């Protein structure tokens, strides 16, 4: 593989990692606070639709983003209502949220745009354009550094930079602030937080809403940045891959970035090198397609060992039986 191809693959990795990373950090906030969320997929989908729909109608991508995030927040609130207020099963709630989004987005899209459950294609103002770094063009020719700067680092949409900036921000919030301390505590032992005089419900809702915000960004990125509009089921399992990345990262922000980059790389490679020939043997395209999933399993089985989730994760906080 030559250097330029490598840059291209890495460039594609960055693009494909971004929604995973946003969703993964979203899951991180939620799960660190003890609320499991397999509904990342659904929230992303809802955000993707509403951001595209509103951007298409208003021609303003920022309004689109706002609508997408709002939609995701609404679903988050629903998940919170079910799993925090009413102490329901978090996995079921997540599943229901995802199905709801899968059906509802198409239903509304059909009812609004009558285009078979998709939004009209977005024009330039309806999308997040690339941000070109200063001197990107002038240094492009410089060997080695040039392509890295101008191709790999420069020229992504603002949400990509937001996603990667969210990593240190998440780390800082979790490990350097009072809110982070309480949030981690409530995922480990909510009774400890409760008896320390802090509201478990409040903290968990805050975490779930942050999760909604980040999922909203992820969905908006898919529909208004990576793509130019919404189509049915456009998240294509990314929410689940983000969950796998979260477990792989053992619920830690920097590791989450590593995991998402790895999965992004796997996807990029699978896209780029289909039908790989290995010594006369052709690896079928199906194998390449399944590769990210197979590797996820292999990684979970072989390299991560036992990933221990936040102790109180998945269990509603019940004081009185």
């Amino acid at each position, binding site marked *: 593989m030559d250097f330029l191809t490598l840059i291209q693959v890495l460039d594609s990795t960055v693009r494909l990692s971004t929604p995973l990373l946003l969703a993964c950090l979203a899951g991180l906030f939620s799960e660190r606070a003890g609320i499991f969320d397999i509904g990342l997929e659904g929230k992303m989908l809802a955000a993707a639709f509403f951001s595209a729909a509103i951007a298409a109608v208003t021609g303003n991508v920022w309004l689109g983003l706002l609508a997408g995030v709002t939609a995701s927040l609404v679903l988050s609130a629903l998940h919170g209502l079910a799993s925090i207020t009413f102490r329901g099963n978090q996995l079921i709630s997540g599943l229901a949220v995802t199905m709801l989004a899968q059906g509802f987005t198409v239903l509304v899209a059909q009812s609004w745009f009558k285009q078979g459950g998709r939004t009209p294609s977005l024009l330039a103002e309806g999308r997040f354009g690339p941000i070109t770094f200063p001197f990107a063009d002038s240094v492009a020719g410089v060997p080695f550094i040039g392509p890295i700067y101008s191709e790999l680092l420069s020229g992504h949409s603002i949400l990509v930079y937001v996603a990667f900036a969210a990593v240190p921000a998440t780390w800082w919030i979790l*490990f*350097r*602030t*009072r*809110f*982070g*301390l*309480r949030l*981690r*505590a409530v995922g*480990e*032992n909510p*009774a*400890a*937080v*409760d*008896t*320390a*005089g*802090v*509201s478990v419900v409040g903290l968990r809702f805050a975490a779930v809403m942050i999760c909604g915000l980040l999922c909203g960004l992820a969905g908006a990125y898919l529909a208004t940045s990576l793509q130019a509009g919404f189509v049915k089921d456009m998240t294509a399992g990314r929410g689940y891959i983000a969950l796998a990345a979260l477990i792989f990262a053992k619920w830690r922000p920097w590791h989450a970035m590593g995991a998402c980059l790895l999965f992004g790389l796997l996807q990029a490679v699978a896209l780029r090198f289909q039908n790989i020939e290995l010594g006369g043997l052709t690896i079928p395209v199906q194998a390449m397609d399944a590769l990210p999933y197979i590797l996820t399993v292999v990684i979970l089985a072989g390299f991560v060992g036992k990933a221990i989730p936040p*102790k109180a994760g998945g269990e509603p906080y019940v*004081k*009185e*039986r």
Partner: protein
Amino acid sequence: MTKPAAIELKGISKAFGPVQANKDISISVAPGTIHGIIGENGAGKSTLMSILYGFYKADKGEIWINGKNTVIPDSQAAISAGIGMVFQHFKLVENFTVLENIILGAEDGKLLKPSLSKARRILKELAAEYELNVDPDARIDEIGVGKQQRVEILKALYRQADILILDEPTGVLTPAEADQLFRILHRLREEGKTIILITHKLREIMDTTDTVSVMRRGQMTATVKTAETSPAHLAELMVGRKVLLQVDKVPAKPGAPVLEIENLSVRDEDGVERVKGINLEVRAGEILGIAGVAGNGQSELLEVLGGMRSGTGSIRMQGAELPLHGPGSHGQARRRAHIAHVPEDRQSEGLIMDFHAWENVAFGYHRDPAYQRGMLMDNAALQADTEAKMAKFDVRPPDPWLAAKNFSGGNQQKIVVAREIERNPELLLIGQPTRGVDIGAIEFIHKQIVELRDQGKAILLVSVELEEILSLSDRVAVMFDGHIMGERLPNETDEKELGLLMAGVAGEAT
């Protein structure tokens, strides 16, 4: 004018669904005193205190603190009112450091750093003042339960509590640690703080408290001055009948060795050696007590004998070698070798809390042919069997269809003991038989153990209660750091000598 009561509860009632945990309870505690609360399991002691601490909300009633009617909707309000509580089950975040646990909820600002450094300073002062030494940077899951309790007390002191509630604080402590705790409590009282102490141990009540209240079935039945009462009287108030506080037994007539342990070593999940090549022998018709501070390998010893872990070395049961790892070393095989096992933790091991009583009576013996009919289990036979056992062991309520979690701690323990003893095993392994069990049930369980011994069965008893070890055992072995520090006869030793052995001092190692 006398000072107003530090705490006054008026007409507190609380129901959990159909369970009336507290019924119209009123008490008053004078400032600067230690007030004891005793009562059977499930009497409602913890519930009452949790209401005072704002953990539960009372259905009815008023709380007056220092003469002021105070509404306590949550723990934050309780903390502001100067109340601190050390729960029966600690409320600590296990993978946090001591320092982080202490500041949690009591941080000084949005950022952690200043809070942490301030807490470190204050912690040092508190530690010096009250001999409450803990490493502020140690993680909770790396320190022992004794230390964890210190953290809980420090948490309360850090929040400048004037009223300190302790719910069964000594259940998990060694005698030395308990002594130290009571020294601290006395110090705090001298400083004018008010302390409420819940315990099942009458001796602690007699030694420590100024006044004592007795609870029974959700009601407060009596409040007396400690100086004016006696353990026997308190026991009677608690249970509603006279209780024998001494174990009544004849000298043992030990027979042939039933269990022979040679050079047994056990490692835990992390590969740390917890039992280090010990040799022991338990004979028919005797009770061998294993004394020791919690965490010195007794638990692992019981578990390897009961087939819950693997080990190396050799164990012989009635002369036959038992495998220590691999196939045939599991609990089923041990049961088939006539070893019964009452585990240390009844709630997470001995019982399935969501199972009905009758399923729990089969638990572990569910493969017994007597419980099968063809390929299926004979549930009817099991239920009949359970009814018989419940009657014999006076399990209340005697309802085979009640889920284990709905029995009180003492009755849960009776179900486990009934299941194991009624198997008529040759060897009974029994760990912490009376932990957190009220005195009525203690009396009953002790009697059952002695009866089994008198039938010529071998019993290996592990307990952190020295009193229990001394009163039940025919022979006492002391474990420290995975070694047997020595064996003593209970009538030739005393708590002091055993205490030294438990601390790893002197004695000839075997």
